[in-house]
């Protein structure tokens, strides 16, 4: 192993080889977080089940029963569970990855490893909750006698896109929080706002049908808007993933790439700031 450091080295993408060399640390950190997250609570892993179920229940009561949004004839819980599973993963990564560097300052001040491992391992921890939420979804599919079809394979691609967007935003926040501590208090707002401007509880057509063009563009610049809509389309065959949804792909991809670049820059001064 040879270590070379040059102050003039301004490469802007992460060193993949180095990340791979540290894969064991990545696994260990993720394992630690999962253990700590579920081992000390009375309900343990049941919490991962309880959260999506509670969200689903309240959405069904308000949007399904009271407001009666148009789900193209699908039972509302089935309609909502797709959005909820995707959104809760996104919210988890924002919250956990976003605060991860600050949370790890004790380690960061004392030892070197590629810092990107910290937010990435947090994003991995979220997969446990995501898996549980997907199980809930499958259970609902069975309950409503919804037959699976081949198009569902496409949903996996959308899910990857959602993970990419989540990691992108998470990395951005984790790097920004180092310099702008106040951001920690902004993240809960972003998550709250995001739930309203993402078609989780309602179909995206509601927006396209009633808002002017510029507002629609803004709406779909939210990467989660088009991705969730497409994800639901792939699973249930409702909604329209075309048109402005492409914007979401572009903004999601851009967030991921710029996030990696910004993180790389912040990595240089990170230990001096935390």
């Amino acid at each position, binding site marked *: 192993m040879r*270590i070379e450091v040059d*102050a003039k080295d301004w490469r802007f993408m992460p060193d993949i080889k180095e990340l791979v060399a540290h894969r064991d640390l990545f696994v*260990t950190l993720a394992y*630690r977080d999962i253990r700590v997250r579920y081992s*000390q609570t009375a309900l343990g892993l049941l919490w991962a089940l309880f959260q999506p179920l509670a969200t689903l229940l309240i959405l069904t009561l308000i949007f399904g029963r009271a407001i009666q949004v148009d789900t193209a004839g699908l039972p509302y819980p089935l309609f909502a569970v797709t959005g909820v599973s995707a959104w809760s993963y996104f919210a988890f990564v924002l919250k956990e990855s976003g605060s991860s560097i600050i949370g790890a300052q004790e380690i960061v001040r004392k030892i070197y490893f590629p810092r990107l491992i910290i937010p990435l391992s947090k994003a991995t921890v979220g997969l446990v909750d995501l898996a549980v939420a997907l199980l809930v979804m499958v259970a609902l599919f069975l309950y409503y006698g919804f037959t699976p079809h081949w198009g569902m394979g496409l949903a996996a691609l959308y899910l990857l896109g959602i993970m990419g967007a989540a990691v992108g935003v998470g990395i951005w926040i984790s790097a920004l929080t180092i310099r702008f501590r106040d951001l920690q208090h902004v993240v809960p707002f972003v998550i709250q706002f995001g739930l309203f401007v993402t078609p989780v509880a309602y179909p995206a057509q509601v927006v396209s049908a009633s808002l002017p063009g510029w507002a629609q563009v803004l709406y779909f610049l939210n990467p989660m808007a088009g991705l969730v809509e497409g994800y639901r389309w792939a699973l249930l065959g409702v909604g329209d993933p075309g048109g402005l949804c492409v914007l979401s792909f572009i903004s999601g991809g851009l967030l991921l790439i710029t996030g990696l670049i910004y993180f790389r820059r912040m990595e240089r*001064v990170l230990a*001096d700031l935390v």
Partner: protein
Amino acid sequence: MGSGGRMISVEGIGKRYRLGGPKAIDLRGGLRSNLRRLTSGGDRFWALRDVSFEVKEGEALGIIGRNGAGKTTLLRILSRITFPTEGRFSIEGRVSSLLEVGTGFHPELSGRENIYLNGTILGMRRAEVRRKFDEIVEFSGVERFLDNAVKHYSNGQKVRLAFAVAAHLEPEVLIIDEVLAVGDVEFQRKCLGKMKDVASHGRTVLFVSHNMSAINSLCQRCLLLDDGRIESMGDPAAITTLYLGKNNAELDGEKDLSDSPVSSDGAGRFLRLRWTDETGRTIDHARVSQGFNLQVDFEIAQPGYKPQPVALLYNSKGEQAFMTFAGEGDHPTAPGRYRATLHFPRDLFNADTYYVSFWFCTWLPHKVHFVLENAISIKVLDDLESPTRAPSHATVHGILRPKFQWEIGQL
């Protein structure tokens, strides 16, 4: 190893910091002051500049210098915790530093899990930890509690476990900052032990210390940093003498610290340190046959702290003579200004120059709030009246020269 046995090669390393103030932007500070902080290039300083050197495989390099000379910054850069502002360096092989013992321990996890966690954070592969697992456990002596959460461990058990992991790292380059280990004597001792062990196995070591005799006995070469630059480099004996000589010229029998700020944790500060003779006059030298006093004026700034000074005396070779402090019951507790006076009897010191370092300490919880290295010195001169004086043309060896009662009678 490649490049002709060169292990570490450092070329023109420099590190610039922004001066003072909170390091992260805080919106409460107002937009204008934050903008100024972001844009101003004025209040920056170089903690390290133009540092170049090479270390060969199996060599132990000592790094000395006063506080703030850049020693720790240099180590932080070489262990890649922080990035240099200019210059470059390369290291052949795995680096590990003993400043990170116990880093990343999680209180909720078991000892077993923490061994893996800590090991991988320190740079081991999981397979490597697994291979050395039994050895680590045996070394730590906590077998019985391996599956208990670490939060139930005593402090000693935690340190032992942490050290057991660190000791099995087998790095090619070991970095030790003994200055950071101040206050934890047990830990300091273990660091030194580990360092001797590693150095004798032909591995490369970078060693920062204020302990000149440790530098002399363990290092083949020594580097003196002053104000962020390399002042000189070479044979440890020559460099340490140069360093102590420099300090000697600058030190005298009194140090006025009344303008110094209160320690960063708000505990207190030293006001004045001085040597006095028995009439209370400030002195910078004394005779072996004279008693003299060390007077420490200090301030307790906050209620709730029970600080007290600890004095550590070193001879001109940097060997520690002793450390001394008041008993646990004797320290003041209320905020205010205090004077501690230490009375040294005649015929205790040898003919030498003694340097005093001070710790600003708290008993419970035991904590060193800050450290003043080599704050003042005194030259003790031999004289004819001393009963411990050596016959002419001979020296009395030893750091101290206490007078004992010898009873000699005929058998």
